[in-house]
């Protein structure tokens, strides 16, 4: 099963909903989507990992890489990750201290809009 990325707009944000297993095989697909979105000059990208079944350090690396790329373009990244089994992998790498892991896309969008 190939990793899928569905892109849609929410208010002034772009959401990338990721489906499938985020590993060395799936990472390039997500990386490319982030590169494309960054090039359009967006201010806020939401990575929705709700439908991600599996993530390892390679997948985490793409999320971290997305944060760096967006910040280099003066934009922000939010991560939606309600599933504890995925959240746990962020926590084991202390990345829950680098990212706020939101429960829903709504939460991520309102958190950014309220700043």
């Amino acid at each position, binding site marked *: 099963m190939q990793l899928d990325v569905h892109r849609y707009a929410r208010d002034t944000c772009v959401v990338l909903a990721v489906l499938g297993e985020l590993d060395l095989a799936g990472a390039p697909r997500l990386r490319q989507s982030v590169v494309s979105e960054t090039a359009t000059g967006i201010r806020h990208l939401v990575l929705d990992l709700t439908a991600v079944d599996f993530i390892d350090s390679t997948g985490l690396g793409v999320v*971290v890489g997305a944060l760096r790329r967006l910040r280099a373009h003066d934009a922000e990244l939010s991560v939606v990750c309600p599933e504890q089994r995925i959240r746990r992998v962020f926590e*084991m790498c202390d990345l829950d201290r*680098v990212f706020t892991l939101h429960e829903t896309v709504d939460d991520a969008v309102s958190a950014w809009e309220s700043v």
Partner: protein
Amino acid sequence: MGVGVSSNARPVGSVELAVPPMPEYLQFVRAIVGATAALDDRLQPGRVADVRLVVSEAATNAIRAQAAIQVTTPILVRCDLTGDRIVVEVADHGPGFDPSAVPALPEVETPERLRHESGLGVSLMRQLADSVELESGSDGTVVKLTFVVADA
């Protein structure tokens, strides 16, 4: 497949896979090794996920190592069910590395931390497996990860 049933009706034996060193096969490796580990019903459901994550990390390193020097021989993945432990082994024919030279991760708050996602794989293996043994030389690397199964 080489898995037999012991006198305690607890599976023992091993599964060995020779897998093309391509990322597309990681999902397959996780599925087979996870299913093998799950045969031991003493292993809590949460730990099966740990086995899948750990083998994904080790197999990813193996694929990357071989890709770096364009070696296309299969990587070997093995899952052994013994009386009191599950042992996952991944062997590659990459260029090898010095395990003691893997740098410590910088503090989370520093910008440097964001550049160290490659060290995360080894960190995860060490957090999740009960022991990690790394043997590496110029002809390749073998990683052996042990999950101790508490006796019922």
